[in-house]
């Protein structure tokens, strides 16, 4: 009996120490990307077109949640805009690069806060300073937040399963189909409006994450996914054997912007200035080329 007790105790200690080990290694892992960021920031200033660029931008009126750090809210899980790298802790993507570049211009560090897209704007000023999460600028959102200048243009795209016989030449052709969208996105708002007004009679399946919609499409539960063009391109490029583009709605382009608190004009001015500088340096074209492929770079901000 005593032996058994001992064995249990030892097993328990082992498990606990393993867990503890996990925790500490995670911490070190978390540190690495930060360190890398700092290094790359330094490298940037070294190659540096100029070290005093930060002084160009007036940061005096800007109040941040954490001093010296731009805290960015995003729903990480929306490739290619934001997603976790293979290690599962480092955010990567177009928006992450943009955040890094802007933070660099403002002379700040940056950190990402992962949050659900549902009600993401409500967390501004509480959990993070701004939201860079492929947020489309629209009138409803403008009522609740300030936006930077648009940083990319986006079109609604319909993705179907490879080899599908659905002929989609306009959004109206979605009638009678089951369409997957991510909840709360402009795709959701647009298709819901089409449905509510009685324009298109389709069934909408809204998911928390666009990843679920693509799984459903792959499994054959739904007929089509409606999403942002860059997301569609990213998925199709990643799985050309599974998905194909059925239609791109060029008639109603949308613009993505960085959302900030309603009263935070100081930050807005600073961010816009930083974006102007980035535009001059050709940052947008270069980054779009990297994340979306060459053909899409035309659509970025000119």
């Amino acid at each position, binding site marked *: 009996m005593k032996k058994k007790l001992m064995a249990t105790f030892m097993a328990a200690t082992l498990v606990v120490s393993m867990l503890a080990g996990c925790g500490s290694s995670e911490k070190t892992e978390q540190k690495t990307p930060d360190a890398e960021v700092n290094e790359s920031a330094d490298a940037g200033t070294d190659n540096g077109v100029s070290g005093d660029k930060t002084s160009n931008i007036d940061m005096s009126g800007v109040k941040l949640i954490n001093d010296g750090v731009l805290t960015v809210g995003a729903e990480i899980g929306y490739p290619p805009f934001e997603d976790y790298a293979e290690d599962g802790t480092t955010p990567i993507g177009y928006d992450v690069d943009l955040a890094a570049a802007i933070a660099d211009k403002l002379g700040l560090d940056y950190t990402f806060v992962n949050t659900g897209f549902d009600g993401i704007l409500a967390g501004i000023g509480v959990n993070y300073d701004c939201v860079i999460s492929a947020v489309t600028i629209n009138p409803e959102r403008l009522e609740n937040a300030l936006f930077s200048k648009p940083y990319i243009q986006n079109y609604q795209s319909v993705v179907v399963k490879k080899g599908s016989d659905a002929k989609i030449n306009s959004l109206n052709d979605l009638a009678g189909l089951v369409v997957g969208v991510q909840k*709360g996105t402009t795709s959701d708002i647009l298709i819901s409006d089409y449905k509510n007004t009685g324009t298109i009679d389709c069934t909408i399946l*809204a998911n928390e994450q666009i990843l679920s919609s693509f799984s459903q499409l792959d499994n054959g*539960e739904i007929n089509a996914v409606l999403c942002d063009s860059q997301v569609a391109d990213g998925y199709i490029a990643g799985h050309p054997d599974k998905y194909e583009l059925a239609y791109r709605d060029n008639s109603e382009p949308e613009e993505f912007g960085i959302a900030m608190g309603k009263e935070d004009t100081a930050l807005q001015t600073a961010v816009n200035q930083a974006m102007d500088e980035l535009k001059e340096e050709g940052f947008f074209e270069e980054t779009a080329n990297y994340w979306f492929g060459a053909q899409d770079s035309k659509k970025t901000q000119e």
Partner: protein
Amino acid sequence: MEKKTKAAIIAIVLIVIAWAALAAAKPSKEVMMSKCSPEIQKQIEAEKNSTRKRITVTYNSLGFINYCAFSSSSKNADGASKEVYVGFAGKVYSAKEGPAKFVSQMVNYTYRMLGCGENVFHGAKLTILLTTLTVLIGFILSIFLALGKISKNVIISKLCGAYIFFFRGTPLLIQLFVVYFAIPGVFGFAWKDLFSAPDTEAVYMGAFVAALIAFSLNSAAYCAEIVRAAIQSIDKGQNEAARALGLTYGQTMRKVIIPQSVRRMIPPICNEFIMILKDASLVFAISLMDITTISKNIMTNELSYMVFIPALIIYLIITAFFTFIFNKIEKKLSVYE
């Protein structure tokens, strides 16, 4: 007791009569529709044959009250327009602000949360259907599991133990993902193909069946432990006495032990039922919309926190109703104790 029941019956009859009278007196759909301003009317006419309509007409009829809204898609300052009307007791009220606005919101939100005007896999209907079926199927499965676990056959006992360990030891959400996404992916079928209905309906049925399977398997594991505890709580002497009288193991279980233990299972099973009622919101993960998901949607779309009032009330009503039924069953079964 007699007087109390009589009073209750009279009260219920009065409420039903009042309800019916108010429901009969409420303005009809046509009356409500004709209330909108000439501009909106013109717009609706103009885009009758257009491929892109911009005006949303919402008509909700909820018991004795009506809700009707006309809103344009654009919320721009120039193009924005939204007109809301509430019909009650023969009159139509404009619900722009004040108490009328509050009432209109409540009616609209309740209507959406109850899943009125949608198929059965929406809102409160989905929650109640899923919970009831889950508890029924889960309970039946759990009796076999519990008997298996206390069986003297080592293999059966270990198998049932392993089942319970697995389903209690992993989160329901992941089980739901496995059943809905992974299994069809691996075996190459789609849940909606199990039904002959058109795609637009079958997709909900498929998701519902997947949810029902995941929930039932999970609930069975929890109920099995409740059933096992109830069976084992019956005095050993009863078992021995029954066996001494010449009853077989099966007869002892069926005629002596289980009837007595059922009464002891009722309160924890009621607990389990209420837990599942709230866990049912997990079906958002496979694109079904239950009360919680709908109220979250409304909150993000309309930025209105009022939505939680009807949500909480609906949940409380459902819970109160089922607690009442469970209490009745418990009372009925405890007659002989």
